[in-house]
């Protein structure tokens, strides 16, 4: 539990003159379950996008398992699997075909690929539905398949971006139980975001809270509660981030959603 697997140092992301992520630094140790929390628009998604190479940092250093995400992007990409916030399966392909395409894209040899697909689909209890088109899958089934897909190339790190959004309690419990097992048995590092603080309290070994592009607190649930003199993580979180609601807008954008504001700015 000592090796650092994700390292961010003074990470900055600007969109125009808007600073979405403002010089954040953190480390995640190998095998750790790490929760990244924060209100909407705090910079969570932007950070995850930088970690998963979808966005280039404006400045700062970001390393995944020793690979710099900007200079060694493809090596960095092989080290992680991701379950996106939004569904990302091909609806018109079957479960098996979705898995297989993923395996090809990560250059897993056919024999190993088929063996692992079978193992993983059995694990998430979708093996008997392997030839069914995704269109007919329920939300829970899709999520399970996405997790299986994220694990196919045996990543060292698994990113889960609000993985339980819209799932029923049964599926949610099953999913977290499985995530815990991955971390215990395979030493896989888990980096997740969620808005359900009980989940984070239950599962995460380390927590970081981001607000307005800055990490405002970090530590275990116990440490955070102690620091804020509260009983639960939820209370600690509310004390730290305030009780008002946010959306991804601000006064400088005339109250528009951030993405829309950026698009309008580009049009101008």
């Amino acid at each position, binding site marked *: 539990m000592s090796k650092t697997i994700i390292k961010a140092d003074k990470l900055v992301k600007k969109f125009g003159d808007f600073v979405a992520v403002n010089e954040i630094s953190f480390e995640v140790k190998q095998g750790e379950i790490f929760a990244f929390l924060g209100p909407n628009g705090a910079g969570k998604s932007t950070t995850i*996008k930088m970690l*998963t*190479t*979808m*966005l280039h940092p404006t400045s700062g250093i970001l390393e995944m398992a020793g690979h710099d995400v900007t200079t060694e*992007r*493809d*090596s960095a*990409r*092989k080290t992680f699997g*991701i379950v*996106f916030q*939004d*569904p*990302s*399966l*091909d*609806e*018109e*392909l079957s479960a098996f*075909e979705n898995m*297989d*395409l*993923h395996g*090809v*894209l*990560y*250059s897993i040899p056919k024999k190993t690929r088929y063996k692992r697909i079978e193992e993983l689909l059995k694990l998430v209890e979708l093996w008997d539905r392997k030839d069914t088109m995704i269109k007919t899958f329920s939300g829970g089934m899709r999520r399970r398949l996405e997790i299986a*897909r994220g694990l196919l190339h045996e990543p060292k790190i698994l990113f889960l971006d609000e993985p339980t959004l819209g799932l029923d309690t049964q599926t949610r419990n099953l999913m977290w139980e499985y995530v815990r097992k991955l971390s215990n048995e395979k030493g896989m590092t888990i980096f997740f975001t969620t808005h359900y603080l009980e989940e984070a309290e239950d599962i995460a070994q380390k927590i970081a809270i981001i607000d307005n592009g800055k990490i405002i607190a970090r530590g275990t649930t116990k440490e955070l509660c102690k620091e804020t003199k509260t009983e639960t993580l939820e209370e600690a979180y509310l004390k730290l981030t305030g009780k008002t609601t946010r959306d991804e807008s601000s006064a400088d954008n005339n109250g528009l959603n951030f993405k829309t504001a950026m*698009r309008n700015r580009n049009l101008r």
Partner: protein
Amino acid sequence: MEIIYALWLRQVRRYTRSSSRLIGTLGQPLLLLLALGYGIGAIYRKAGEGDYLAFLVPGIIAQTVLLSGIFWGLIILQDKRFGFLSELLVTPVSRIKILLGSALGGSTISIIQGILIFIISMALGFRPYDWILVLPALLILIVMSISLTSLGAGIASMVNDFQGFQGINNLLITPLFFLSSALYPLNNVPKPLAIISSCNPISYMVDAMRFFLSNTTHFGIQKDLIVITITMVLTITFAVDRFNKIEM
């Protein structure tokens, strides 16, 4: 290679599984072929211009490929909107490869559609001028498919919503088709129309097709081939450039 094949296969699988997509892109060319081929054909002959079907079929094949290529662009937009593109873009596969595999799949679909229209027009009484020359016509069809699929991919990479795509469709595709030499000979049209059509690359694609299938040409085959090649280079550059600029 396996990666490109897998991406290609994905596109072709989607196509063969969706009959509505097939009918959607073949419907309009078929309608034009019937309505114009039969309807206007009689007048055309009376005017002393000869066989209208022989003139029209290369134009309709071009239209099919144009529609199919742009329609295929919708798939990229769909991937973008419904998340699958994120999955593709975080894999250790370069964007060029992703675009290449997918666009080859899209082109394959266009080529199949073009050939289908060719077969249907045979059933309606169209005969190629010389069967040997069907081979170079096929080559033109392939180049045309690659260009127009790239155009579709480039446009789809730029726009973010389906309404925007629909707008471009109306503003670009319809004029590209109607203001080309696809439907009428450019010999006797008013000057402004002739000038506009002469600036439209689709005209040259149709003209080259017509040269090989029906033995007539307006611009001359050398000029056709030059314009077609330049168009292909430009559209591919456009697609690569736009696809590289997609931000999730």
